């Protein structure tokens, strides 16, 4: 029996100066218990389609369809009461950002109980007991406590679990997951995806998984709908789509996914003896946090980064990976002295810049540049592209004014944009184009070191591979040394020569890229690699996850003889192979 049947759905949003079509004639169906994936880039209309199915779109949306049936009810004709009946009970939804999905002024328990009682006549006490059971089923161990927590007291991963529990509370027939893991770390993402599959089986629900990530699709669904520009490009069984894509767009998507599997071509051989382009020695960052209780003022030191050593050899790309909060971005920002380090040295071409005054620092800034994650906020919206790209020349007063613009336009061409883009403003560009401008600005001074802080994680997959290609090409041409900060292991694998893994403010492993992917030593590195979604549905598997305590407990142990170091109960970095360091406990 068909649970969802949509026929010729169109959605348009009325804006000033007319309507903008978001969905143009989408049709699909969903059987009971089936898992359907909808994949597409931002703006493809995938989310809008599902929001339209539950009639959750705002008043400025115009919805039209030949028919749109959910659980036997024609959604388009349903009145407010009928919709409330349908939502939560026939179809429940989980959203992208769990941090903003809960009402901040009520406890988790209150919000789950409220959902239960909105749909079923249940006594308050029974509903609370049920809520606790639901939290247990989504593998929240201290469920009783969590019921009384406010949303801000829980982490993103925990909140997403609670969100799933809330969605399950009325035993919906279909669970709609709208990018449920995009805002989460890789390791958490894998756990949440596995949890969704588990509860889907337990509750016998159907699933609609909306995502931009083909890996998520490969892991979770039976059938796929590929959307682009508000239309369905292709539909088919997940294995067929991966093995034999019919549509050109699907092929492009898959190509950008497969790009992650190719090996980097080792063109340049670094001179081991040369002074590294950038070296961090014992760099650390400690934040003071108030722990005020009553009249006594207490401070606690939060060690965001603890004594990181890192070497960025000339003409090489070093990947710095870790989850959010691991201190990888802080490390990058400290290297640029955009965040003041609490201790340690920063050596650029062998000279320490960690204590230089702004004026003395300025000449070093020419040698070291940065590109950021969010290309939108990386460009001043009030300046033209030519002005933006020429700004470094302007700040350093290098060439006369007229020539500055010429050089800037040359650089626009170098990064693959037309010269006549010079007069445009950032909002007129797409995300990928903006990131190209940011790259041009960073490289116009001819720096030797480039720090790239998640430069591709806000981009659509197809654009991502283009930007990576551009970075790779420019790195080779200019002989750049690049520190590539990312949580995206697929990209790191294709791009970098060496990988440094950070975990809770420490470097836990460091090795040549190929070696770390083939032979990870530290339990956290293993967990990180294990969490990468499969690139083909054939490879999907059940995973086991380690808690933080388990990771801590599984820290490798080496003897004094193996390492030649003094025994120490505290974990420290030990060398286990050429260029391969891992954090371990050295025992006698």
């Amino acid at each position, binding site marked *: 029996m068909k649970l969802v049947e949509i026929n010729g759905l169109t959605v348009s949003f009325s804006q000033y100066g007319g309507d903008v079509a978001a969905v143009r004639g989408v049709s699909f169906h969903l059987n009971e218990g089936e898992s359907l994936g909808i994949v597409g880039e931002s703006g493809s209309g995938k989310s809008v389609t599902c929001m339209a199915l539950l009639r959750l779109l705002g008043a400025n949306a115009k919805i039209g369809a030949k028919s749109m049936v959910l659980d036997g009810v024609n959604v388009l004709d349903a009145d407010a009461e009928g919709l409330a009946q349908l939502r939560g009970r026939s179809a429940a939804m989980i959203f992208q950002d769990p941090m903003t999905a809960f009402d901040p002024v009520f406890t988790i328990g209150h919000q789950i109980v409220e959902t239960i009682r909105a749909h079923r006549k249940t006594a308050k006490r029974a509903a609370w007991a049920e809520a606790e059971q639901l939290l247990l089923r989504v593998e929240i161990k201290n469920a009783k406590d969590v019921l009384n927590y406010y949303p801000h007291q829980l982490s993103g991963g925990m909140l997403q679990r609670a969100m799933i529990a809330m969605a399950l509370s009325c035993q919906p027939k279909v669970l709609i997951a709208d990018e449920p893991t995009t805002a989460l770390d890789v390791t958490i993402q894998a756990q949440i995806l596995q949890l969704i599959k588990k509860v889907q089986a337990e509750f016998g629900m159907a699933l609609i998984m909306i995502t931009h990530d083909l890996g998520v699709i490969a892991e979770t669904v039976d059938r796929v709908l590929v959307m682009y520009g508000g239309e369905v490009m292709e539909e088919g069984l997940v294995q067929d789509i991966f093995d034999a894509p019919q549509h050109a767009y699907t092929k492009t998507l898959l190509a950008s996914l497969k790009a992650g599997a190719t090996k980097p071509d080792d063109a340049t051989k670094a001179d081991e003896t040369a002074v590294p382009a950038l070296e961090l020695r014992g760099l650390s960052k400690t934040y003071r946090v108030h722990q005020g209780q009553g009249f006594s003022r207490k401070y606690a030191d939060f060690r965001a980064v603890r004594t990181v050593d890192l070497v960025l050899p000339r003409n090489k790309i070093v990947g710095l990976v870790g989850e959010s909060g691991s201190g990888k971005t802080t490390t990058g920002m400290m290297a640029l002295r955009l965040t003041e380090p609490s201790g340690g040295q920063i050596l650029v071409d062998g000279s320490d810049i960690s204590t230089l005054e702004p004026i003395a*620092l300025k000449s070093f*800034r020419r040698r070291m540049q940065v590109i950021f994650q969010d290309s939108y906020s*990386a460009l001043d*919206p*009030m300046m033209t592209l030519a002005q933006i790209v020429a700004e470094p020349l302007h700040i350093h007063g290098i060439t006369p004014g007229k020539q500055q613009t010429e050089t800037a336009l040359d650089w626009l061409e170098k990064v693959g944009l037309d010269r006549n883009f010079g007069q445009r403003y950032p*909002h007129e560009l797409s995300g990928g184009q903006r990131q190209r401008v940011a790259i041009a600005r960073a490289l116009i001074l001819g720096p030797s070191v480039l720090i790239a802080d998640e430069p591709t994680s806000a981009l659509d997959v197809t654009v991502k591979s283009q930007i990576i290609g551009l970075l790779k090409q420019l790195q080779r041409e200019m002989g750049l040394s690049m520190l590539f900060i990312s949580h995206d292991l697929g990209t790191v694998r294709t791009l970098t020569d060496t990988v440094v893994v950070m975990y809770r403010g420490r470097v836990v492993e460091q090795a040549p890229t190929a070696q770390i992917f083939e032979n990870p030593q530290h339990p956290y590195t293993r967990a990180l690699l294990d969490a990468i979604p499969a690139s083909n549905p054939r490879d999907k598997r059940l995973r086991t996850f380690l808690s933080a305590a388990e990771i801590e407990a599984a820290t490798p142990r080496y003897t004094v003889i193996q390492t030649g170091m003094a025994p120490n109960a505290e974990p420290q970095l030990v060398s286990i192979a050429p260029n391969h360091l891992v954090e371990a406990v050295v025992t006698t």
Partner: protein
Amino acid sequence: MSAETLIPAAVIAPQYRQRSPLYFAWRRFTGNKAALVAGAVVLLLILMAIFAPLITPIGPEAQAYLPQALAFPSAEHWFGVDDLGRDFYTRIVYGARVSLTIGFSAAAFSVVIGIPLGALAGYYGGRVDWFIMRIIELFSVVPPLLAAMLLATLTHGGFFTIVLIAALFGWVNVCLLVRAQVKAFREKEFVRAAQALGASPWYIIRRHLIPNSISPIIVGFVLAIPLAMMLEASLSFLGIGVPPPTPSWGQMISIGLNFMFFYWHMAVFPTAALAITVLATTLFGDGLRDALDPTLKGR
């Protein structure tokens, strides 16, 4: 890097013509009928104030109609004649001059004080911000009108004093608006990028932060105008504002109050003039804010 060609042309969605944010701001503004009408009224008032001598041939202080003192409105004297034999329409028109001049100059002063302080507080944060915020807190606990009354008595009122008093209480708003905007933008990555290039704080504030604060500055400026006009009218109403015989609406209302029961025109016209001006300026400012404030986008 022609990577865009990786996507076959067939599947690229039709490109919409990109419009500038100012275009959308303009569309939002023109979509707001109240603000549009208010803007027109403000423009009219400004023109009226500038060309006052062309509109009415008699000076505002000329007691040319003493025999007809307190005459009701007629074809000859649209708004009647006041108690001292002056054409009341003339006085209202010239009153617009006083009101608008005080409003605009006080707003200009507010902006001049508010922008640098707001930018400093927003950019540096920490101690600088703490200090400026404490000053602002001082202003929040002192009732502005009472303090203005005190200052006005202390200095015996006068045109320029009123402008200064109004600016003294007007800058706080501009400062807070600029501070909020600068604070939001100083974390933006283009500011970090400029820092990474070695740009000085002054360069960043001047070239990036203030241009990006132009919307709140305009809004702060426009909304400071009615506040200053209201302050002037209130002080003049109490007899400690612009001294007679300079025509001021607040002063006229205060005098009109005594004649209210018999010569209604003495109270009604200045009241209406003040109400319309203040209301129009505020609605215009509100409309500008809604149009320029990107956080309201899509609502």
